[in-house]
């Protein structure tokens, strides 16, 4: 499997967005609005990570736009000293698509949550991903509805007891990474709110990717779903559970790198194995550039709802023409081949003239 070269010049995610020589700091990206998330909310860490990573891009701040839907995380744009729109529930990808199509000079970011992106806005999310619109989508997954005070969400584990499900939730949850890969997203990554370094790396790679980039961020909601990802943060536990991905390197984890991911020759499936048993040669070498999404999909299935294992990092990063580039290209081609002559358009082919008396 290789990536398909469609003969288009390969563009970076930020090509066309004006840059500046001016030195920027995280402070430049803080708006004057008081941040109103609950104390201890994981959103703070993500906000800080984004504010401190953006200056590295060297973009003109006015050419960055954040669009969000509804939910706790969707307040994000208010806290960013960029352009922003806090829109309506689930619709941010659609709104951002219109913006991205008409403005190639903007770096457009979507901030959404598990309810916003996967419940009410699920349709827009998958269609944005399949079109490959040049948007960076940050999906804050806290596995709960926070803003409406604690109902289960489409990523809550089965049997979740909440105010709306006193006998336990009945639905099977989404795995957002699997969903995105199923929609053939060209870039999919995952990070933890508390892991500034890992998060920044994924954000950086997402920003540089031309096309839709979905970044799932595990985010703790201390009020309604505290500790949902605690096992991934506890020293001793986390090393046993988190499987970090690095392009071009064997997939291996554990305090001493004693576990790894191998392909079962009988089933073709990916599974976790002991390096000592299978040998280093057997480890799968991570490749984000495979055109067939089934490899990265298989990686996404290594982790279950119980977080026994959780794969983080960049699952997939392939090049495919973006919808917005193609849409602009069509307009450009049309403009080159036919003059925009309103007079002749209005006249059309068949006219007749009524003469004066």
């Amino acid at each position, binding site marked *: 499997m290789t990536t398909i070269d469609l003969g288009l010049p390969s563009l970076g995610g930020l090509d066309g967005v004006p840059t500046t020589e001016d030195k920027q700091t995280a402070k430049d990206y803080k708006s004057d609005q008081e941040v109103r998330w609950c104390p201890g909310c994981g959103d703070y860490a993500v906000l800080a990570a984004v504010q401190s990573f953006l200056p590295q891009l060297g973009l003109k701040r006015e050419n960055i*736009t954040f*669009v969000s839907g509804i939910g706790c995380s969707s307040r994000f744009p208010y806290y960013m000293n960029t352009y922003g729109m806090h829109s*309506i529930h689930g*619709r941010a990808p*659609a*709104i951002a*698509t*219109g913006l991205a199509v008409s403005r190639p000079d903007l770096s457009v970011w979507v901030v959404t949550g598990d309810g916003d992106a996967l419940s009410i806005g699920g349709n827009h999310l998958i269609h944005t991903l399949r079109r490959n619109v040049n948007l960076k989508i940050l999906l804050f997954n806290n596995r709960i509805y926070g803003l409406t005070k604690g109902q289960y969400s489409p990523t809550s584990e089965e049997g979740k007891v909440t105010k709306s499900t006193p006998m336990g939730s009945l639905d099977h949850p989404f795995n957002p990474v699997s969903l995105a890969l199923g929609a053939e997203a060209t870039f999919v990554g995952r990070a933890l709110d508390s892991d500034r370094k890992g998060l920044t790396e994924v954000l950086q790679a997402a920003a540089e990717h031309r096309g839709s980039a979905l970044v799932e961020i595990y985010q703790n909601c201390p009020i309604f779903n505290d500790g949902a990802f605690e096992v991934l943060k506890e020293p001793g536990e986390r090393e046993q559970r988190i499987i970090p991905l690095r392009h071009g390197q064997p997939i291996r984890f554990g305090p001493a790198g004693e576990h790894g991911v191998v392909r079962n020759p009988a089933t073709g499936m990916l599974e976790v194995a002991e390096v000592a048993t299978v040998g280093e040669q057997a480890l799968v070498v991570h490749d984000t550039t495979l055109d067939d999404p089934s490899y990265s999909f298989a990686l996404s299935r290594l982790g279950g709802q119980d977080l026994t294992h959780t794969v983080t990092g960049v699952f997939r990063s392939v090049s495919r023409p973006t919808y917005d580039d193609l849409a602009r290209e069509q307009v450009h081609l049309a403009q080159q081949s036919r003059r925009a002559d309103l007079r002749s*358009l209005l006249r059309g082919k068949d006219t007749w003239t009524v003469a004066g008396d």
Partner: protein
Amino acid sequence: MSTDVGNGASPEGTEVRKLDRVVIRFAGDSGDGMQLTGDRFTSEAAAFGNDLATLPNFPAEIRAPQGTLPGVSSFQLHFADYDILTPGDRPDVLVAMNPAALKANIADLPKGGTLIVNTDEFTKRNLTKVGYDEDPLENDSLAAFNVHKVAMATLTKGALEATGLSKKDAERAKNMFALGLLSWMYHRPTEGTERFLREKFARQPDIAEANVLAFRAGWNYGETTESFAVTYQVAPAKLATGTYRQITGNTALAYGIVAAGQQSGLPVVLGTYPITPASDVLHELAKHKNFGITTLQAEDEIAGIGAALGASFGGALGVTSTSGPGVALKSETIGLAVMTELPLIVLAIQRGGPSTGLPTKTEQADLLQAMFGRNGESPVAIIAPMSPADCFDAALEAARIALTYRTPVILLSDGAIANGSEPWLIPDVDALPDLSVEFASEPNAPDGSGEFWPYLRDPETLARPWAVPGTPGLQHRIGGLEKADGTGNISYDPDNHDKMVRLRQAKIDGITVPDVVVDDPSGKARVLVVGWGSSFGPIGAACRRVRRLGMTVAHAHLRHLNPFPDNLGEVLASYDRVVVPEMNLGQLALLLRAKYLVDAVSYTKVAGLPFKAEELQNVLIDFVQGVAQ
């Protein structure tokens, strides 16, 4: 047929009668190509210089079961030597391609009317399918009409024998035979149709030739057989001077949007989702990307309008097109546009409702939806074109309001004018309105802080500044939460909310719209008819009829539904009786009664078809005589 205005005989002996107007209805199975046939006859009438109006009527199913009543498709065309307002109430000539078409349409043909029937389809099986126990062509049930029985399919196949085309393909050209026959009867020019057929089937030259041959065979049939003793002439109409073309409402809307992009200097982004009867707006705009138009067929109605609003945020002219059920889906985003005070055009082509309703039929029942169909106090501007050609001006007017006042504008067209066509006096491009806008470029805080306040309003229009991303120093955030007056920051302050609700309303109320013009040639009418949108034609035609009977009646037609024209209250108050005909259960009447405390009387009909002039004439006569007593 209408009164003869002069007779003569042609050199061949066929009598030529001059008429001032004719209504022809082509009816057949939905697979028979009746829409194409009607369209072509319309183009011939247009090329000849007649005034005209058309009414296509077709089933929602793409191919309803063949030969059945639900599968009947028809196209009515009214053409005249003077300016006419409607597609005509009843046909003078009915062309019926099969028993179903005859059965579905014969009730509309007045006594003495001309009926041209394709006899080939009158088989026992086809007759039974639509419930004819006997063949109506064989008994005296059609005695009241001037019937011409023509074996169109057989004649077409005969004419195409030499082409080597299969019988089935040959038979499919029978609609062109019918067109040829009618073109002969009415002395229509034929070059246009032949050219059209050759272009349409350019990739299948044998099919193109077959259609041309069938068309000529129909013409020759009229000329050589003796069954048609009379042909008719309808002279060109004396319309206002200028160059004309024929146009449908949906095409005119699309052109209006193209023109709005040009006149504003903004790129246009149409975000939309296919829906009957609005899809043709998308199809048309998709052809004109060279005008800087991006058309985005989204995953659903909501995404369509979302993309349009996102584009508006970025400084484009965001447009979405839809019909009633789609407006319902878009209402939350329209509310967001109200709150974010961004320009947005919603082209809503009404159809029969509620729910899926009657997708291919017309109705005006979405006025209150446009007016109030959102949560909260959520005023938007509403404008309704009055005829197919008026769609062009209405689209430009919608753009003017959206751009000047930074507001969503809902344009309410409907199925009748969307698909109907009429001659259009092609506008002078140099005379089109200037729609250029100025984006904000500087901080504007009145406190001298050097900040940018996105909700600081223009004192005259109450519009807020449009600061597009990419403008240095004007970074700001907008959204659906209530804004503080001026700064635009989130505000839950009770007094601020009260103020903002009133400001948003005042902005819409303060939109400058032209006064409504009253048509009352006598100046003495005591009854005023008020209509809106596509009923302009039927109401206007009904008023003419009433006046011809020596009575007086005034007609005021509203294009601007929100806000209403300033002079409307005064106009309403100066008549003894106000009658409001609508294709709904009285939606405009409700608004007029509420706003002006006028005792407006509704006349309503919701049959999926435009009003008939005759029907309205009778209604109006009752009112006129009522006030006279």
